[in-house]
């Protein structure tokens, strides 16, 4: 699914969270959103999910203007916020089942997919426990399993690497995300971890004060940078200096 921002402006009072953002994200990529705190990363994700409404400009998904009543478009993407949506008193599998049924992804084979994912994320022994009895990382993994099992075209994740997941869970997520991207899925995530973004993204989108400062592959960014080994760190340093 093509995601295109055309001059999107979004303000919270006097703060411009997104300042005339124009951007085209093509399918089959892992895109990391980088930027200082309050740069507009989460707002960008929320705009795609239909939660935040742009003040100006439009969002196009596969060349079709996005509106909240376009359920056909909305059901092609899945949002996973930093604190996931859960029915906390229900079991892990029941939460997964509700998500699968909502996204109409509960057809044949769903059970095997869920089983495999639960094993991958070390959640199988906890599959029937209520989510409120799990740790934060485990609860996040439960939501992640639901997202992976639903397997929408666009995955929107807000700070997945600051979610309390253990290294094994992070590794499993990266593996599944890579495989999904090769199947044509778009994975868009925000992070503050530059080394993670450097290794785990096809494209990097740097936002500062609501403006897109860079949106390119790491190779291209490296070509333009003076410090080729620490391209993202240098970029952040420049952003910080320009903000002073």
């Amino acid at each position, binding site marked *: 699914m093509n995601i295109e921002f055309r001059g999107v402006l979004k303000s919270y009072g006097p703060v411009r969270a997104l300042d005339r953002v124009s951007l085209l994200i093509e399918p089959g990529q892992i895109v990391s959103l980088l930027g200082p705190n309050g740069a507009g990363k989460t707002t960008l994700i929320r705009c795609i999910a239909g939660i935040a409404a742009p003040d100006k400009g439009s969002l196009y998904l596969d060349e079709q203007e996005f509106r909240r009543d376009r359920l056909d478009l909305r059901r092609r993407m899945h949002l996973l*916020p930093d604190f996931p949506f859960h*029915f906390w008193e229900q079991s892990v599998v029941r939460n997964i089942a509700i998500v699968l049924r909502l996204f109409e992804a509960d057809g044949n084979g769903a059970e095997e997919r869920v089983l495999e994912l639960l094993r991958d994320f070390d959640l*199988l022994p906890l599959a029937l426990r209520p989510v409120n009895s799990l740790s934060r990382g485990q609860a996040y993994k439960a939501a992640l399993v639901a997202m992976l099992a639903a397997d929408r075209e666009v995955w929107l994740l807000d700070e997945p690497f600051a979610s309390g997941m253990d290294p094994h869970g992070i590794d499993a997520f990266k593996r599944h995300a890579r495989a999904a991207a090769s199947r044509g899925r778009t994975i868009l995530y925000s992070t503050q971890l530059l080394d993670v973004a450097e290794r785990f993204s096809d494209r990097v989108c740097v936002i500062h004060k609501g403006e897109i400062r860079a949106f390119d592959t790491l190779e291209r960014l490296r070509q333009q940078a003076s410090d080729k080994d620490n391209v993202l760190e240098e970029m952040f340093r420049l952003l910080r200096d320009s903000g002073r």
Partner: protein
Amino acid sequence: MRLHSPQFEKAVHRGVRRMIRVSPELKRECRAARTLRRHYSITPLAAALIALAPGYLVWTMQDETSHPETALAFISLWGFALMIFRAQAVLSCLFASSDLRTLILLPISESTVFRWEFQRFLRGSLVHLLHFAAGFSVLAWLLDFSALKWTVVPLLALLTWAVMISMATLCAARLPWLPYRLLVNGFVVLIFAFIVGRTYIGPVLLEVVDRHASSLNLLLPTGWPVSLFELLLPNSHWAYLVLLIPIAAVIMTFNGSLRRLAGGYRYQERAIPPASDLVPHTETPTPISQDRDPERPFRLGPTAIEEVIRSRQFLMPFPWQNAGWLENLLWRWLSDREKVLADFVFPNGLRISASWKTIFRNLGVALLLALVADLVSPAAKFWLLAIGLFITICHVLAVFLATGRAFQVTISSGIGIPMYAGLGIGLRELSVFLVKCSTVQLPFVFPFAILCSTMVVWQTGMPLQFGFWFGLKIGVLLLAGRFLTLTFGISGGTNDTARIRFRSAGLIISMAFFMLAFLGLCAASLFIPDQRIALPLLALTVAEAYATFRLYGWFYNGNRFDLMRLPQR
């Protein structure tokens, strides 16, 4: 323990100002932030207007009846409603306050947090002192009190306020399980009904309060301090002074209630027992070993869990369709997608039939008790009926207008996001499902509404035919009200009214207009005696409520606001 250090705050302010002075960019940001800070709240104005309402109503009652006792009974009733409202508020303040999440992380003792939150509750309750002061002052003014008598008026207001607060705290401490929120909603509906049908309900209510004024003042705890006002009237009886004993007793419970509430105030992480495995519900339940230790949580082994998953048992929705006739009817009416939504909105299943059984049973008990009480005292019959009706109507509203988890909000990055918005659920499909949930209950709603209104007209001596039409129309209006509750439910998870901006001004103005039109149409369709005019107006009311909902949906679909509830500043 102090949570604020003025010296530290002053030092920080000075440092920040110094930095802003030397940086043009910071100056610009500071100017912008000032614009953000400059906002006007209508809350103080609304609180002041509400505080004046008892005064206005006391004046109306005294003017209509010339019985000070009736006006005093109204103050007692007002105090009683405030008591329920404050009991709910004290529980919310102590146990559901938004700042508790932060306070948990600070090295502050529970007793300090308790004191702090309770003080906040008391500060919030001070405005109700104005309510009583306004009521008593208007009555004193109408009765041409001497200067000496006027000096007692503030004392009485203070005493009534103290009794109201003590009773609210007592209720919260001793009866925390009472459905205060439901009762508060019931009072709101009563006020709504009064506003809609003031011309018709007003005289009836006035007559009822007038007739039972003395028993109201003696039966309601908030009526005891109010009754002392009678000592200031000509030909008063010293026996009212006896009421000082129960008043003192109620006020003396305050410390005990506080101790009880403080004793149960534990907000640190609790060591909860390990949770058992929740096996998905099936026709053939998973056998659980009889010799299992009941103290230890029930666990399935990995192979059994795999089997549960492989069997697709976990993908089955909660089987609520066989819980009763209404559930079965609804199940057959729902589309496949709506059945999925039912699982999302009511993950523990729907319980409609059982709730309606309880409603009719409670109404029957109230009616029976009222008939028995009629043999002893007509006043007791009246109050038993009134209480029975009030409780069952609150229950009906909760069942008929239930929204389950439909609009539940999840906090993410400091803002509340409704779950439906994040899971690709559409406003229209969700609303259609909830409207179906209400519509299927109409076969019970109409008999209930007709029965209740017939009981009311029987009690007030109006023709029974009026009760039939009234009940029928109330049933239809409840369905119309469903569209409005849906609108408010959605609105509760958005920032549509967080700030009045050009984009949202149209929404707010048009919604206010439609709400006023709805109130007007409700009043007209209910109280116009000629059914040839009233029934078309009733249809218009339903259409208007639907149009209000659709209009809101238009703004919703047009991305005129965010689906986020921003934190309160």
